[in-house]
């Protein structure tokens, strides 16, 4: 069953197969958590979004169409939930004492980390902060393309944007990111 394609597993899930669903969750939970955390900049929000995405996959399993790729469908659900979460956060921002944006990057401390590893961690933190400072419409596409390494076709399906829009947003997002991380890019 571990070699089975996502779409075949999903057709089993549609028939109520719990084991197939568990396998899909184990295949995508890390990837989706990474996407949500890079996009939202907050670990707890990311966990909530990913959990809710899988809950919706289970509850809406009947509406899944095998014509499309499962991963694209899953990303679309997670992406919509993440965007809704960002909007809600923006609405409540004025009552929050501290914004979550960019503040929730945890630096693992294993005690024996080498200097190189520590430098890498600090660089990651800087990049995450720079990412979170991008406007969401650019950030989403940069994360999907440059971190999750999805194809442009997948990104157009997930975001519902035209190919030209995706390309212009990624160029703009990259330019903004590079502007903020000049020292890292060696400019």
């Amino acid at each position, binding site marked *: 069953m571990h070699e089975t394609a996502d779409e075949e597993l999903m057709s089993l899930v549609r028939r109520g197969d719990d084991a197939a669903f568990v396998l899909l*969750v184990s295949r995508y939970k890390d990837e989706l958590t990474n996407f949500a*955390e890079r996009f939202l900049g907050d670990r707890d929000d990311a*966990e909530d979004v990913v959990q809710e995405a899988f*809950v919706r996959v289970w509850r809406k399993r009947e509406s899944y169409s095998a014509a499309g790729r499962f991963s694209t469908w899953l990303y679309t659900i997670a992406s919509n939930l993440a965007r809704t979460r960002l909007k809600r956060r923006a609405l409540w921002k004025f009552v929050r004492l501290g914004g979550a944006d960019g503040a929730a990057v945890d630096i693992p401390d294993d005690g024996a980390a080498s200097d190189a590893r520590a430098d890498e961690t600090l660089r*990651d933190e800087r*990049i995450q902060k720079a990412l979170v400072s991008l406007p969401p419409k650019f950030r989403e596409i940069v994360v999907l393309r440059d971190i999750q390494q999805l194809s442009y076709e997948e990104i157009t399906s997930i975001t519902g944007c035209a190919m030209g829009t995706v390309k212009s947003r990624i160029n703009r997002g990259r330019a903004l990111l590079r502007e903020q991380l000049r020292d890292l890019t060696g400019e």
Partner: protein
Amino acid sequence: MDTPHRGNDYERLKEELHRLKRRRAPWYFESALHQRLHGGKRRRAGLRPIGIGPVLVLAVIVLLLLALAAYFVMVHTTIAVSWGK
């Protein structure tokens, strides 16, 4: 297909970005999801179930109020009996 803003100077940053693909779901992710799907009513609604703590606190408060009420009833009964003498 990628068209970096200026030349290939984005490539280095892109390598750094690729490295960021390593966040993991927490170890309890599957069990939390299982609870969301198959747990009680509150779990399915995405809420935490009410634990034993609040129930115990409520029980202690109710017992204290009952004890207080019993004390006042006893005191008033004693006064009434002594006045009756």
